[in-house]
């Protein structure tokens, strides 16, 4: 019997409540920054998961969509003063349009061929953005002019509004993932991932299903790129189109657990925690040490949980749910 | 020489062999027949350790071999010619054969074995420099058997050597197997072509649904009406 007072309901509700009040519990803006970055990577990892996890297509070029969103939006904001609330959709749309040829080219490829082709496409885009500096300002990057508190321009003096926007986006991605998972597309993608031949025999056009998932994924990634540009004020071809970002996006989903709704959420939290703690604990004094530790942690997690931490975490969570008392009542 | 006792084997959750018992004596040739899916190939895979059994025991020269890795089973002198031939397609015929004598013992006799195998399969000698992947089905089957012989096995296990071959080629293949038999090598033959298999073997087992349903001398089985029933549903 599941009552509203059972842990199954009050635990998630409690977590959500905690997330809503979280910024006020944090000692200073840096921690708000960390949770904002966690939320951004929940969005990115979640978006990647749509095609990489459910669709089983290991993309290492997602920075291309992120960068496209960030650049298209920022160029429009700077040139025409359009509100980022509007260019957000345009940035997402641009990324979506980019995904169409990417899909046509790459979905014919398998495994490592696919992964490396996507690296190639993102790198090509990065080099072209550097090359056409009359339009993109090349290596100078683009700056979002500082306007102080300007909600219409998606700029705030405090980090807290950014946090809530990022939180809404992160929750949005979780909901999109759940929705897709339950819709026809999600069923199809999972089936393709399990056995493409069997799926095709059941009338599933696997190329089309993957292209749709990629388009959705690209769109969300592009929107996240716009938010990131607004939040971080400066974008640069190497940072928003770089291989490092592509890898980190995929890593979030992989460390968490691909093809699951909550995997990227967990992955983003863990990865960001690794990044921040290594940077802080080994700060500055011994060059290379912090990244060495970070890389080591990465290797350790993958050796320990090659399928991501989500199955392990899910057991912990279920155990917790089972052990928690029903709200208002004593332990039975 | 080979003794299989009460063998259970499964792929994942699906039980394929249930309590199979079988034996092959020195120099004896034994056929395992049965319809597709009866578990014949699984039996051979379990003997050569490609598949770890769920239960039961496999003994070779009275020693347990069911927990050895496959390459150590091979070292004991058990050659497994797998279903579908599985020649190494990007290597030449001769390279395939040479690899058959990869282990130290057989390697010492490699030149001799090569001559022996070419003697049995002159066709392979003609094609020694050709890539194995470009051979015809029958030639590939000969190569696979030849490769098994290079091990100088005491037991040669053949999995469906007639698979996908034209009748004439099947004919030739079985003549060759008969020649091998004369060399004193024990043979464990898995086959669905009842006539061929039993024609060659001293004894036979009929496998159905993962169990041995009939066993006995080949002649008895050939005359047993149940065999025909099992095959043609008559």
């Amino acid at each position: 019997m599941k009552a509203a007072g059972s842990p199954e309901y009050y635990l998630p509700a409690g977590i959500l409540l905690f997330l809503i009040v979280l910024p006020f519990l944090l000692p200073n803006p840096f921690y708000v920054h960390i949770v904002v970055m966690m939320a951004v990577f929940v969005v990115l990892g979640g978006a990647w998961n749509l095609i990489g996890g459910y669709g089983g297509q290991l993309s290492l070029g997602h920075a291309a969509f992120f960068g496209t969103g960030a650049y298209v939006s920022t160029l429009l904001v700077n040139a025409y003063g359009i509100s980022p609330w509007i260019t957000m959709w345009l940035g997402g749309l641009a990324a979506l349009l980019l995904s169409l040829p990417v899909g046509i080219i790459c979905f014919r490829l398998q495994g490592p061929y696919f992964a490396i082709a996507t690296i190639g496409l993102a790198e090509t885009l990065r080099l072209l953005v550097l090359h056409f500096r009359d339009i993109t300002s090349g290596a100078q990057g683009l700056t979002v002019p500082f306007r102080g508190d300007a909600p219409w321009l998606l700029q705030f003096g405090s980090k807290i509004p950014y946090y809530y926007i990022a939180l809404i986006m992160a929750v949005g991605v979780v909901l999109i993932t759940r929705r897709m998972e339950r819709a026809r597309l999600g069923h199809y993608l999972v089936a393709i991932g399990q056995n493409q031949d069997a799926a095709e025999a059941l009338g599933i056009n696997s190329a089309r299903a993957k292209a749709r998932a990629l388009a959705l994924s690209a769109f969300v990634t592009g929107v996240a790129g716009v938010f990131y540009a607004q939040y971080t004020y400066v974008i640069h071809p190497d940072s928003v189109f770089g291989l490092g970002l592509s890898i980190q996006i995929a890593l979030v989903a992989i460390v968490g657990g691909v093809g699951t709704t909550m995997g990227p959420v967990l992955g983003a939290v863990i990865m960001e925690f690794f990044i921040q703690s290594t940077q802080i604990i080994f700060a500055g004094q011994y060059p290379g040490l912090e990244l060495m530790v970070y890389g080591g942690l990465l290797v350790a997690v993958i050796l320990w949980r090659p399928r991501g931490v989500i199955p392990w975490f899910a057991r912990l969570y279920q155990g917790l749910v089972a052990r928690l008392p029903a709200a208002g009542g004593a332990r039975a | 020489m080979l003794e299989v006792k009460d063998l259970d084997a499964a792929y994942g959750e699906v039980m394929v062999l249930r309590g199979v018992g079988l034996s092959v004596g020195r120099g004896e040739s034994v056929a395992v027949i049965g319809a597709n899916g009866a578990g014949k190939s699984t039996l051979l895979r379990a003997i050569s350790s490609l598949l770890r059994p769920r239960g039961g025991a496999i003994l070779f020269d009275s020693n347990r071999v069911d927990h050895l890795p496959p390459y150590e089973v091979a070292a004991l002198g058990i050659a497994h010619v797998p279903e579908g031939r599985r020649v190494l397609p990007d290597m030449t015929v001769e390279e395939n054969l040479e690899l058959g004598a990869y282990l130290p013992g057989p390697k010492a006799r490699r030149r001799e074995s090569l001559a022996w195998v070419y003697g049995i399969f002159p066709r392979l000698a003609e094609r020694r420099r050709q890539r194995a992947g470009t051979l015809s089905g029958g030639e590939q089957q000969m190569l696979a058997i030849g490769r098994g012989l290079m091990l100088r096995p005491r037991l040669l296990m053949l999995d469906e050597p007639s698979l996908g071959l034209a009748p004439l080629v099947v004919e030739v293949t079985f003549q060759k197997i008969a020649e091998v038999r004369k060399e004193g090598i024990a043979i464990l033959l898995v086959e669905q072509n009842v006539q061929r298999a039993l024609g060659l073997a001293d004894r036979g087992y009929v496998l159905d649904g993962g169990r041995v349903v009939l066993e006995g001398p080949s002649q008895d089985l050939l005359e047993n009406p149940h065999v025909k029933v099992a095959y043609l549903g008559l």
Partner: protein
Amino acid sequence: MKGDILLEVEGLAKRFGGVQAVADLSFHVREGEILGMIGPNGSGKTTTFNMITGFYPPDRGRVRFAGRDITGLPPYEVCGCGICRTFQVAKPFRELTVIRNVMTGTLLRHPDPALAETRAEEVLRAVGLAERAQMQAGSLTTIDQRRLEVARALGTAPRLLLLDETMAGLNPTEVAEAMRLIASLRDQGLTVVVVEHVMRAVMSLSDRIVVLDQGTKIAEGNPREISSDPRVIQAYLGAEYQRA
């Protein structure tokens, strides 16, 4: 004879490397019948299925379905036309539940997941898997995996069902069950082609039988004709068997 010709295969051929898997194969299937397709291992039955359903492009030949040329269409379009197949080696989506496996099929005609689920439940009841709906497909027994394979195919509401060795590895009771299931499908108006090794089943189920050997058709006719055809016995049991 049963109804009109539903599927017509004409001069189909396929070669893999050194092996001619199928050579100049022609046959047809009539609406509402069960056509058995038999032949020794490696005689080209599965390759034929693969060519009909678009997994392999044929080297030569045509496939016509309900008057439409479907040669070379991709598998999902072939399925969309109303031909669905099962695989010789069952290919369940192992990590999914049984009901979700079947939903993958029913979603083709019912894009709304709720509707697709209802339909999937119906199909599961029809094949006798209803109680296992929530089990992981990978943990099913052989017979249930075969049932699932059929259920998934039925979910796409096909006019023609191609069953590839659905009974391999089943014990006699299970074979009998499978036969009942297939017969009931025909009774519901479905056309079925069965590739099968279990002769007992083919012989009693099929309206007509096509026998393949070495990639060509060596015999065609009703079960009685086939079982007494010397070419068939030779192909199966060896040349001298009849004399023995």
